[in-house]
């Protein structure tokens, strides 16, 4: 039995109230009631969020659980209510899940980001369910005049065995609403879980397969206009002039005008990245009419001068960024990165005496890895709806960081935050892209000007060429081996445009006596943003490919070699800042070794392994592949993951499978290049996305079984598969793959 303080007595926002039609409603702040240590708070990733919400029990026993977080395919809309339902002890079939709107009074930080939904809300969600259950028990004890401890619950029923009394939650809900919220509650033993750990279907499954309007782009309202924007064709360019005379007379076109996305004096917050400060808006009656006008418009662009941008980052003091002028090209980017790698860089971590170890080395291995800019390419193109009145605004659409967007919209429109409502629609993919909601500002400004409800839709081309990309990265690894083939030193020199991917304290830091991690950056006017497992998505691919190459050089099995390093890090770690648990890390490698039939497969299929730790979870993968007609054929991917307790196993597996397919796709084909500032791909005829025929034939996901509180799952399976694939491709072809994308090109479609 786990007795936890709910901290409810001290917090007024956790309230119980009677529902109008009879029943109980319990509002609570899920995260604020979790007691995190200062250390835990410090260790929270950049993108984290609190979870709040409410549940209500109607007099007919139906339980409604609000899902505060936006849903973009992670399946939190099913998993988070499952945790509440578990502690409430109700039949999952009686639960209705509703998407909460953005509500900063009732909820806060309704974010998608950093794979933190379940981790940061785990205890709070349990407490919410347990508090409501406790209140139902208290009400029953009062009505039956029996001791509280003699009362039990079972699937939505309250029971007193001694007196053979039984009543449904629904019948007791109104009385429970009058009970004061408990100051401490008992949480279930994990062995008693019935809903957590039992796969439940996606609560929106039927709506998805029947085509119901779930997504932002599906929004229609009375009198709604459609808008599109025209943005500069190249990074480094700005609007000079435009001619709207022919457009205005085109059928269905209402207005054509320019708009400033942000005011000049606006202090940008972390997610206020805006690629093009001024764009042309075309507003009309229907999508096709606006699309036609967009094709007909004449706009002149001109290069901009270097300018300064004030920024308030997520943490730390205000910064002034210099946005350089110039029309950049990928060839120049590559040359600049090579140049930086040989210059003196910022030393972020140094253990032992790497210089000496390299001087005394019997052998030195040095390799450089690169990866290009990537576009997120969410299948639902960027879009948003706004209906702005004189003193209020109603917005709706797919968003990852709604609260921050609300603040930006409020400032831009000059309407107080309290008068702005944002409805959260399902996201047709996010992967980080929908954290940067400049399009919400654009549509708000358009609606304000048009005095009408407006839906802004980006064409695929607008979306793909509009910036906020995964940065371009490079890392140079250098390893020293002594005469006995011991790895004595490691140098990591990592940088990027415009952000460094370095995580200085991650494995293999801590496992090597002499270690140095260095970092550098190159400024650019190409905008970047979070992309599924930011930085990790590159560092894992390079690090785990390099370790594979060292394992080969020292004539060790790649898994055994990693396990030896992890053993060292567990027993006698170097340094004190290592940010991983070496035993859990080794655990996923051992599990994947067992499940993948490592080194024991048939001779046609070649295997590669990789493991990585990010977003608080450990993932290891083995890729089994053959090489046919100069193309990789992925036969199977075996994945072992340790994310603590798994809430909804089948959906969790689906998310891991997705991370693996996404990783393989980007590793093989993903790439956005530039020439004179112009993105060289603008749609799926040139930007190669992984297809079903290129996807693994089989994906086998295994979760490490333990009682550790749950951690992240949306991101951790994505980074390592790049390297598992590269290492398998080496086995299949005899060639090492250092530069992403490994294959490139474009899929030839039959249709």
């Amino acid at each position, binding site marked *: 039995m786990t007795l936890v303080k709910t901290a409810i007595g001290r917090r007024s926002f956790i309230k119980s109230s009677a529902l109008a039609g009879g029943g109980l409603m319990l509002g609570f702040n899920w995260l604020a009631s979790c007691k995190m240590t200062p250390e835990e708070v410090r260790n929270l990733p950049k993108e984290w969020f609190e979870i709040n919400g409410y549940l209500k029990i109607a007099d007919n026993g139906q339980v409604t659980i609000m899902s505060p977080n936006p849903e973009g395919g992670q399946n939190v809309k099913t998993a988070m209510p499952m945790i509440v339902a578990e502690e409430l002890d109700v039949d999952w079939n009686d639960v209705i899940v509703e998407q909460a709107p953005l509500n900063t009074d009732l909820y806060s930080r309704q974010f998608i980001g950093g794979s933190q939904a379940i981790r940061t809300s785990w205890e709070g969600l349990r407490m919410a369910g347990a508090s409501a259950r406790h209140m139902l028990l208290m009400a029953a004890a009062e009505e039956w005049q029996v001791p509280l401890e003699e009362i039990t619950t079972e699937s939505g029923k309250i029971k007193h065995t001694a007196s053979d009394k039984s009543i449904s939650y629904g019948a007791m809900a109104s009385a429970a609403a009058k009970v004061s919220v408990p100051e401490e509650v008992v949480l279930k033993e994990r062995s008693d879980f019935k809903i957590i750990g039992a796969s439940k279907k996606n609560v929106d499954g039927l709506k998805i397969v029947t085509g119901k*309007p779930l997504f932002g782009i599906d929004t229609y309202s009375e009198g709604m206009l459609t808008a599109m924007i025209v943005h500069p064709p190249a990074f480094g360019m700005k609007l000079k002039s435009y001619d709207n005379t022919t457009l205005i007379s085109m059928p269905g076109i209402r207005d054509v005008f320019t708009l400033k996305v942000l005011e000049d004096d606006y202090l940008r917050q972390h997610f206020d990245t805006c690629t093009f400060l001024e764009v042309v808006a075309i507003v009309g009656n229907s999508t096709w009419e606006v699309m036609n006008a967009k094709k007909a418009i004449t706009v002149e662009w001109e290069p901009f001068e270097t300018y300064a941008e004030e920024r308030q980052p997520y943490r730390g003091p205000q910064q002034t960024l210099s946005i350089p002028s110039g029309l950049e090209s990928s060839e120049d980017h590559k040359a600049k990165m090579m140049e930086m790698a040989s210059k003196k860089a910022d030393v972020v971590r140094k253990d032992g005496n790497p210089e000496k170890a390299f001087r005394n080395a019997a052998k030195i291995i040095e390799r450089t890895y690169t990866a290009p800019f990537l576009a997120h390419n969410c299948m639902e193109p960027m879009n948003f709806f706004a209906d702005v009145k004189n003193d209020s605004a109603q917005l709706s659409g797919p968003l990852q960081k709604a609260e921050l967007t609300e603040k930006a919209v409020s400032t831009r429109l000059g309407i107080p935050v309290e008068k702005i409502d944002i409805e959260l629609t399902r996201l047709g993919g996010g*992967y980080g892209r929908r954290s940067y909601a400049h399009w919400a500002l654009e549509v708000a400004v358009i609606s304000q000007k048009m005095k009408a409800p407006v839906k802004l839709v980006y064409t695929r081309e607008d979306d793909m060429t509009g910036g906020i990309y995964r940065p371009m990265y490079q890392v140079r690894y250098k390893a020293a081996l002594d005469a006995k083939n011991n790895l004595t030193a490691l140098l990591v020199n990592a940088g990027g445009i415009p952000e460094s991917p370095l995580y200085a304290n991650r494995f293999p830091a801590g496992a090597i006596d002499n270690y140095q991690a260095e970092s550098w950056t190159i400024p650019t006017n190409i905008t970047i943003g979070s992309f599924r497992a930011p930085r990790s998505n590159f560092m894992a691919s390079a690090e785990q490919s390099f370790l594979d190459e060292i394992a080969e050089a020292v004539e060790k099995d790649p898994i055994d070699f990693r396990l030896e390093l992890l053993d060292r890090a567990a027993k006698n770690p170097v340094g004190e800042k290592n940010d991983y648990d070496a035993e859990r890390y080794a655990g996923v490698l051992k599990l994947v070794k067992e499940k993948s039939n490592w080194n024991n497969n048939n001779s046609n299929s070649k295997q590669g392994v990789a493991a990585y730790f990010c977003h608080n979870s450990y993932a290891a993968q083995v890729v089994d592949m053959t090489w046919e007609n100069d193309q990789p054929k992925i036969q199977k991917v075996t994945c072992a993951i340790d994310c603590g307790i798994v809430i909804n196993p089948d959906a969790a597996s689906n998310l891991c499978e997705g991370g693996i397919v996404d990783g393989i796709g980007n590793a093989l084909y993903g790439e956005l290049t530039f020439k004179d500032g112009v993105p060289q791909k603008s749609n799926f005829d040139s930007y190669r996305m992984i297809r079903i025929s290129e996807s693994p034939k089989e994906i086998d996901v295994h979760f490490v079984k333990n009682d550790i509180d749950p951690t992240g799952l949306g991101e951790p399976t994505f980074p390592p598969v790049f390297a598992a694939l590269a290492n398998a491709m080496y086995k299949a072809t005899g060639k090492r793959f250092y530069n992403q994308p490994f294959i490139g090109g474009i899929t030839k479609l039959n249709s």
Partner: protein
Amino acid sequence: MAKFNLNINGKEREIDVDPTTPMLWVLRDQIKLVGTKYGCGIAQCGACTVHLDGTAVRSCQLPISSVGDKEITTIEGLSEKGDHPVQQAWLEVDVPQCGYCQAGQIMTASALLEKNPNPTDEEIETAMNGNICRCGTYTRIKKAVKIAANSINA
């Protein structure tokens, strides 16, 4: 502008639009059937797939003037209660993640099984290769198509 009489999901619809308007935008903007999705506008992603006389077509590349009296079926008309064998298989396998591409996937799969109720793995891959799933649910899509085939053949 021109008037067209369309047969959509078994119902007659009269619309008045620019004859070059693609079926996709007639469905979404005029008829408010939004299950058919916009993904690329150039027939490369499959999100806009509908049936034209039972054949899977990309509605973003289908001018309304070329439809004539052919029967159009969208995801909303595939079954009355969401119980088409392909939809049922999708639910059984719990295929979707974000779900945006899935209507198009289901329309392509159902057209395939209508013509070839017993597809091989290769035939499934060939038929489904034009439908992108950015979340990467491909292994589940393949599994669901096979379950649907078994259920149709049972």
